[in-house]
């Protein structure tokens, strides 16, 4: 991959951002608020019940905390996937991208990068710390390294699924599509899949593997070693899903029809 290109685009992004500092602060705060609300929802549930399918309040906070990290990175790096269908395929902005000597998908994601969501990652790590201290879990030296690898895997799961979803735009006519539906599904990854019935659980593990974005890797950092095997699969699942999503995007690209003129 073209490392210099990534650097060039990032520099440009920072330059534009510095020109709109107020926006940056407002958007970061909005992002954080959104995360806080979803956390509040969990806390409210736990005022009524002591545990959900054997998972305590602190454990759920820990998993939600983990989930926030890949989710934030996804929203930062793969934000373009939300815009590919309407702006790039339907409006034909892809024309411009396709005549530059850089991988088209990389260009779109770089153009659309947004750093505001990263506040969510900081919040998530803080929540994990809080949960772990409540549960009396100490830091082991290898945990930060494993954390980075698992987060990368989780981000790739999201990236692959949303790249594939964006690519459906090559077939569909007009705007809007299935993305909102799937977006609603993303939330499922942040709760223990063991609370779902067999079929849903199977789907979230093996079909739309959102369980690898939150629950399985998150559980590892709460010392749920019975799920360690699943957690370990996260990077592999991530690579496979992203590979498939990318292949599908390439296939769709050959069907791009541009706009009228």
């Amino acid at each position, binding site marked *: 991959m073209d490392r*210099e*290109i990534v650097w*060039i685009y990032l520099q*440009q992004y920072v330059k534009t951002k510095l020109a709109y500092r107020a926006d940056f602060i407002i958007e970061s705060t909005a992002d954080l608020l959104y995360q806080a609300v979803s956390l509040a929802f969990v806390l409210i549930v736990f005022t009524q019940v002591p545990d959900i399918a054997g998972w305590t309040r602190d454990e759920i906070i820990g998993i939600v905390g983990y989930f926030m990290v890949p989710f934030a990175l996804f929203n930062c790096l793969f934000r373009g996937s939300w815009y590919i269908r309407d702006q790039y395929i339907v409006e034909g902005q892809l024309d411009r991208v*396709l*005549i530059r*000597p850089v991988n088209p998908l990389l260009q779109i994601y770089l153009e659309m990068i947004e750093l505001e969501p990263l506040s969510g990652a900081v919040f998530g790590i803080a929540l994990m710390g809080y949960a772990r201290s409540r549960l009396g879990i100490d830091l082991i030296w290898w945990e930060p390294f494993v954390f980075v690898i698992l987060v990368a895997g989780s981000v790739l799961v999201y990236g692959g699924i949303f790249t594939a979803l964006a690519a459906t735009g090559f077939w569909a*006519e007009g705007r809007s599509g299935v993305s909102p539906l799937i977006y609603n599904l993303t939330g499922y990854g942040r709760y223990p899949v063991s609370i779902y019935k067999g079929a849903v659980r199977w789907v979230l593990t093996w079909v739309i593997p959102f369980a690898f974005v939150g629950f399985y890797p998150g559980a590892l950092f709460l010392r749920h070693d019975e799920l360690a095997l699943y957690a370990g699969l996260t990077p592999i699942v991530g690579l496979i899903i992203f590979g498939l999503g990318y292949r599908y995007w390439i296939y769709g690209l050959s069907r791009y029809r*541009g706009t009228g*003129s």
Partner: protein
Amino acid sequence: MIEALGLTKEFRLFQRREGVMGAVRDLWDRDYQTVKAVDQIDLKVNRGEMVGYIGANGAGKSTTIKMLSGILVPSSGHLVVNGFVPHKERVEFCRRIGVVFGQRSQLWWDLAVSESFRLLSRVYRIPESVYRQRLDRFVELLEMADFLHIPVRKLSLGQRMRCELTAALLHHPDLVFLDEPTIGLDVLAKDRIRRFLSEINQELGTTVLLTTHDLSDIEALCSRVVMIDKGKIVYDGSLGKLQDSFGQGRTIKVDFSAPVNLAELHASFGHLPVRWETPESRRAIATFSAKEVAPAEVMKILIDQYPVLDIAIDATKIEEIVKEIYQGSVMV
């Protein structure tokens, strides 16, 4: 430089039914129609040539350009451009070509013009000293010094187009595609762009493929014209020959102070090959070829014999020429 054989692009169009019930039926029973936007064209362009690619709206110009530049994948046919199959070896291919779409900007909307150029110079890996030198030259040729520090979105159309050309040529591509580079510009701006293009072509030997609605662009730049209609190439040859065959068409629109009738007009011009129409009782339109009839002669007869209020004379537009060729009223 460009070698296309039997190049074809088909689009499948989804025919929507009318009304709510129609929309419901569309859910499972879709009606598609296949349209050939580009139909089996053969095109060979040599290095250093400047070719004008013309045709009416929807004739297949843009679709061809998009296939040649690797944006669209051809449905069938053989295509090699600058030694590459454009859509297959896209990244390497793009390094050596430049594209300008008159209707769509290639530049970063919010960035100052000079920032956009700098960014492009790095995307195309142009060494700093070379970049400086080239940019200075472009700024001079296109007189851009005044607006280099203005964001692209604040530029006038003419200024923007000069920037687009610079953006497409900074990396000294072997081949540029220009899709309507003079659309919406005034005569002065058009002239500046034409002079720039011919200079670049002479100096660097850049191959240029240009689509336009304005025949005078082609007159100024291209020795060769390719005309497309309904996806097929209907003319490929010199501009001179094209003009001899069709560019001689004239229309004269006359307003009279009293009603005239068609039979009377035809009688007065009976000895000349002039076709008359009377869209209104006091208005008539004559079409003829300047090769066969001198426009002055037509005007003289009109003024001598009729109560003329106003006369307007026009040369035939590309659209009309294409229509004429297609209808077979003019033979190539």
